[in-house]
């Protein structure tokens, strides 16, 4: 499955990043991820923690009978205030049948982006590898960071999948 992902991602990136994006906020930055990868958006509750996992893996929740892991992107990217209350938002992603939830500061909008609105990413040193960033988009003076959420989530550093699968 993972090789599958890589192939599709590479090809999609090579082709075009054009499409509809769900934008979410992490700290002061605004991110976007492909809307088709989103299954649903829900609140944060009843997370069962799992022993000996990185801090950003909050644990697992019961999503209508499925056991779904929850990753806090705020911790992973060192962004935003990490607190959990009734306003905490979890985006449930469906990545090739694998269901994963990510905790973000907030979900703002769904926007359609054209090819010409998307810029390449300069080489930077960040807490996430720039290879997981599809591009940067400018929207009313704001910068939108478009992440390849699928490749990011199945990457080794997210520790979400077994080494063999990753």
């Amino acid at each position, binding site marked *: 499955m993972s090789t599958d992902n890589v192939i599709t991602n590479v090809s999609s990136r090579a082709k075009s990043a054009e499409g509809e994006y769900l934008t979410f906020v992490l700290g002061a930055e605004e991110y976007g991820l492909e809307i088709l990868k989103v299954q649903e958006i829900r609140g944060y509750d*009843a997370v*069962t*923690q*799992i*022993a*000996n*996992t990185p801090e950003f893996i909050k*644990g*697992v*929740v*019961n999503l*209508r*009978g*499925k*056991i*779904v*892991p929850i990753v806090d992107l705020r911790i992973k990217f060192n962004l935003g205030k990490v607190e959990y209350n009734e306003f905490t938002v979890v985006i449930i992603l469906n990545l090739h049948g*694998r*269901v*994963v939830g990510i905790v973000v500061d907030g979900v703002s909008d769904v926007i359609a982006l054209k090819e010409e609105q998307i810029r390449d990413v300069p080489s930077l040193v960040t807490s996430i590898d720039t290879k997981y960033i599809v591009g940067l988009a400018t929207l009313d003076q704001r910068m939108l960071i478009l992440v390849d959420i699928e490749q990011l989530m199945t990457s080794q550093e997210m*520790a*979400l*999948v*077994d080494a063999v*699968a990753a």
Partner: protein
Amino acid sequence: MTIDMSQFYEVFFDEAEELLAEAERLLLGINIDDPDNEELNAIFRAAHSIKGGAATFGFMDMTEITHVLENLLDKIRKHEMALTSEHVDAFLAAKDVLKMELDGHRLATDVDQDQVADVKMMLKQLSEAGSAPAPVVAEPPPAPKPVEVAPVQQNEIPDGMSCFNIVMPDITEKDVENLKEELGLLGEAAVSKQADGRFVITLTTDSSEADIVSICSFIVDPDDLVISLKNNSTASTATLPTDEVKPATVEVVESKVESSAKVLVQEEVGYGLFEDEGKEKQEEGYGFFAPFQPHPDAVKSELIGDDTALTLSNSGISNAQQASATAKTEPTATSVPSPEAERKNLGRRESDKAPPASAEASSIRVGVEKVDQLINLVGELVITQAMIEQRISMLDPVQNEALINSVGQLTRNTRDLQESVMSIRMMPMDFVFSRFPRMVRDLAAKLNKKVDFATIGATTELDKGLIERIVDPLTHLVRNSVDHGIEIPENRRKAGKSETGTLTLSAAHKGGSIVIEVTDDGAGLNRDKILAKAHSNGLAVSESMTDSEVFSLIFAPGFSTAEVVTDVSGRGVGMDVVKRNITAMGGAVEIRSALGFGTTISISLPLTLAILDGMSVSLGESVYVIPLNLIVETLQPRAEDIKTVTGEGRMVHVRGEYLPIIALHSLFNHATDITDPTQGVLVLLESDGKKSALFVDRLVGQQQVVIKSLETNFKKVLGVSGATIMGDGSVALILDVAALIQMGQSTNYITGAASFSNQNNQHMQRNA
């Protein structure tokens, strides 16, 4: 429109496999000196059904073998030839070849043509050796009943004409005229009127009945037609004389009830249950396949096979069913002349009375994934139901009495539903056991041993998933028992035992698990030799070990060496694999043995993989589930029972044993207020023969949980075997006891000191 036959291949494959297994079982059970006629007939029928099915689907290689096999069987069951052990061997070999060919068709595996030819030759020779002259293989065997054979001549009537009486249903004269004109194209047609006002077209033609039916079907429902063969101009097509047709037809009408009863029997035929010969002799040969598309060979073989003198009424019923069977396919396949068209001239009107389609009603084949989905959904339902129940319990019972009663009803229904759904996956152990008689027989013959094989509790049911996975370990154990357990006759005699050893496979329910035992009355395990061997292999052993501990050593990987095989009773070949497989299934293996008296290897398995009896324990805010079968006991230790080694390794003293304490909170880096074992609870666990005391905060309760995989969306977590959803909708992790014990041993988490130092870490983490 053509029927896509491939969709029925699977049915045939399954069917043939079952029939082969059945035939093998019967062959192994047969008494050579005095064979039971019923059994011979049953074997014959199995071969026969396979032949019919294979022919229907065009697997000619299988048809050929079964055909030769059938000839030989036929002679034996008619007592023209005495059954010998060579025959049985030949039949078994034929069964193997058939299986190979079946796999060849099914899985595209290689078919050893030499072997096929050998077996065919062997069967032929055996057949020729008998009193009767050997029939040529490719041709039909000597026909037992000329009357019946005639109608199965191929549909092409080479020369000469047949005269059909076609009784029309209630239709207008104009339609009849039209029909007559149409039929006139085939030959000479004449219309007459019956006493009851219905029209009869008499047609003299060289066409087959199927052609007539296909023409008539433009105007009338073919099912409503009654076509009978009046007489025949050539001897070769002589069917039943017209005079006899009439009474037979009447008989069929009268025996409607009987006829539909037969359909039930027919269902059984379709599923390979052949116990009751007398009832179903007419249906054999086409059983399950008839509704799809009868094939000439299928019909032919039925007739050839039936040596029992059928009365006319019997054949009438048979025909009626056959006709109805054919009628089912006709509307779609009218353009193809039905090969056994002539056979349908009887009992035509019975077609709608006993539809063979109902033959499939008694059981259905469903994909396992569908069943699993159903089980999953029911699992969800049970959880949801538990949630509702929990909410309800908080309501005022007086005000909400009706609601509470309804929920009580729902609870009962849910439980019933769950039980029924779980039972779908259950299969009798016979499914596994049935493959062993053959193996034991072959193995015993090869090793020159005499072994009686017995099974007990073959009807005990077990989850299909487990059934499939238990086959390999059991095969291993049975082979070991015959190979190394049971001694050669000479040695047995010397030991004062009967020359024939006994190997028993048994299955029984014990509590929530199933216990499968392989017992032999062989030499038994030699404790001293195992100990010596273990010692030389560098395993930690001592003379004071209990017998069961010593015997468990043979499960140690690498214990199986050639020396052991000869010296000790030799069990050890791949025993570690057996043990590992069974542990992976959530089961346990135990060995009981007495030197000189035999060995019993006892496997206990959970009834199903999907549900687990668990004990939930709490640790801080979290709840974990421990498989109940691995818990020896739980206790709250007194301070004086807690001992340390060099001030670190904490142990608990329980009934003379010192068990290491594994503190779950330190192993899992989990914050909790209870860090002193005397404040919490120690759960004594046993896995792989090792005992440990798991230190948790407190016990929550005992319950059945539905096992969910963590790996579906996440990955494997060390020390956790899965997850489950609790009554309140939250997720609880199921502990992997074997891994925990190992973790406890391989790290110093086990020690109290480590536990305290970790506690400091936790404080730091919490402060951070």
